[in-house]
């Protein structure tokens, strides 16, 4: 009815409303939420990164100072946070991704029932997303002799006294990486599995006529090129979940900062400055750096798996 009224008053607007208006109506709810909770935050982070803001006074423009301080004076960032983040991201990102692909490929070689059961087992750690598993990890890696790992190693006489796994700087990062890899078979893994199963079997037959003999050649010349879109989707998902997993060190060690900054990742650095020191402008600059890192990783993935048009 509203459309009819509009039609009478102004035929051009009426036509538009009839043709495109309902499309915008359908998209409006999502667009609004997207705008408020994704677009504006990114924009605000970007703007705040050029200011000094302690949440009490209004933000004061200070130009690029936050970035300059971050790159030249923030010892903790340069000495611990950045190397830690790169180490974590490079091992967990590509590591988890390759693991997902290899497992998806192996699963695709099996009949439906065992494949489904095993895919479920491999996927299930990713749905726990931290919270529920904390109890398990805290018990496994507990620092007293009652901890499962300690008790196991003491029993084998590998170690003579219990080790404070989660409090010692030399082990924390390794444990964080293992725990995150354990839960890295997520949505991307399912997408790649579906992608491998979708490939037309005739491609393989044609390939074998063209002289592709080993399964390795098959993977590189047929499987991966035929499922590039899924490979790219999986890559983006694994980049996002890698950076999103950044709080794991704080969860495991029980505090921010982590012991001697051993498990300090860029996400923890943001939280440290934003919510513990209330230097919101500086924290926003670190957020922007993080978002740029994600984009950089995604660009590399895009280069690798973009479909040729």
């Amino acid at each position, binding site marked *: 009815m509203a459309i009819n009224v509009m039609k009478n008053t102004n035929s051009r607007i009426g036509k538009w409303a009839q043709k495109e208006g309902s499309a915008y109506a359908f998209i409006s709810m999502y667009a609004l939420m997207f705008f408020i909770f*994704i677009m504006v935050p990114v924009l605000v982070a970007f703007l705040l990164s050029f200011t000094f803001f302690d949440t009490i006074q209004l933000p004061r423009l200070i130009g690029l100072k936050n970035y300059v301080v971050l790159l030249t004076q923030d010892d903790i960032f340069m000495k611990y946070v950045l190397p830690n983040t790169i180490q974590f991201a490079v091992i967990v990102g590509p590591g988890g991704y390759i693991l997902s692909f290899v497992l998806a490929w192996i699963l*695709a070689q099996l009949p439906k029932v065992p494949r489904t059961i095993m895919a479920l087992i491999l996927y299930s750690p990713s749905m726990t997303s931290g919270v529920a598993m904390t109890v398990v990890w805290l018990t496994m890696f507990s620092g007293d002799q009652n901890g499962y790992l300690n008790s196991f190693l003491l029993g084998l006489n590998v170690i003579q006294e219990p080790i404070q796994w989660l409090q010692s700087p030399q082990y924390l990062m390794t444990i964080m990486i293992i725990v995150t890899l354990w839960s890295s078979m997520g949505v991307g893994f399912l997408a790649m599995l579906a992608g491998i199963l979708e490939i037309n079997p005739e491609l393989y037959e044609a390939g074998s006529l063209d002289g592709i003999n080993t399964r390795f050649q098959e993977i590189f010349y047929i499987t991966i090129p035929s499922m590039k879109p899924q490979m790219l989707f999986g890559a983006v998902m694994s980049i996002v979940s890698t950076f999103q997993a950044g709080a794991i060190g704080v969860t495991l060690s029980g505090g921010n900062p982590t012991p001697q900054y051993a498990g300090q990742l860029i996400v923890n650095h943001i939280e440290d400055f934003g919510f513990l020191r209330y230097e919101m402008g500086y924290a926003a600059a670190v957020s922007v750096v993080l978002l740029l890192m994600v984009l950089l990783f995604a660009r590399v993935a895009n280069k690798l798996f973009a479909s040729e048009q």
Partner: protein
Amino acid sequence: MKQKSLKKFSNFQNSRINPKGYHPSQLKFYVMLLPLIIIMLLPIIFIFSHAFKPLDELFAYPPRFFVINPTFKNFTDLFSKMSGSGIPVSRYLFNSIVITIVTVAASIVVSSTAAYALSKKKFKLKKVLFSINTVALMFVPIAVTIPRFLIIERLNLMDTFLVHVLPGLAMPVGLFLIKQFIDGIPDDVVEAARIDGASDWRIYYAIILPMIKPAIATIAILTFQATWNNAEISTMYINDESLKTFAFYLTTLTSTASGANAVAGQGISAAASLITFLPNLIIFILLQSQVMSTMSHSGLK
């Protein structure tokens, strides 16, 4: 020789990708997968086993992996307990259930209506909007916790029920997956209905929705996991204890479990972990075939 080639022929399908039945060549894959499956499964089994351990087994030395005398005591303890501020545990669980149901339902409506427009309607900004959403697939929410906090504060959403629901509704992966799935429905179907005089709303409701059940199931699962396991929203935006979630309550247990409250906390937090984990597992098992058929549309070009 002849027999061998014949056998090879009849089993050709079974030694390839997506085989129909068993073939000896699959054995090596089982051997490769088995150790990994066991490693992946151990923590999951541990959640189950740990939750049913009586007190003496929780603190047995040497620690035991499997429960010997299973008991429900941890669960009864959990529900007879009050949190530090006098809120019964069942209240957190009730909050989580209501929040999750509302968020999942809203997320389905919000994402599927937008996906329908992006896939089947023609309008100017269509391409731009979809590519913005594709870039947003790379969005890492944890990076913008601070601006989000400031915005939610400004919008007066602190300490409201809505703050649990709204941020989760903008889910680029969800919109992307449903849109790709709707792309698989031929345009002719929609055109035919339009010629018959069906309105957009009717096309969406009566034609598209019934055809995209797998995609709906997938986004339901993704939203469910993001909401049910969410403790951050309660930590950051909620001060009113009676509005917090079960996942939040679990984090308070694990942070005290290592401290002074260790003895009493262990069993309760093990039980709470299982309660948090179990619904994820059950829902995924029920909907897994739908998820897989959605994932085959997941390609990012």
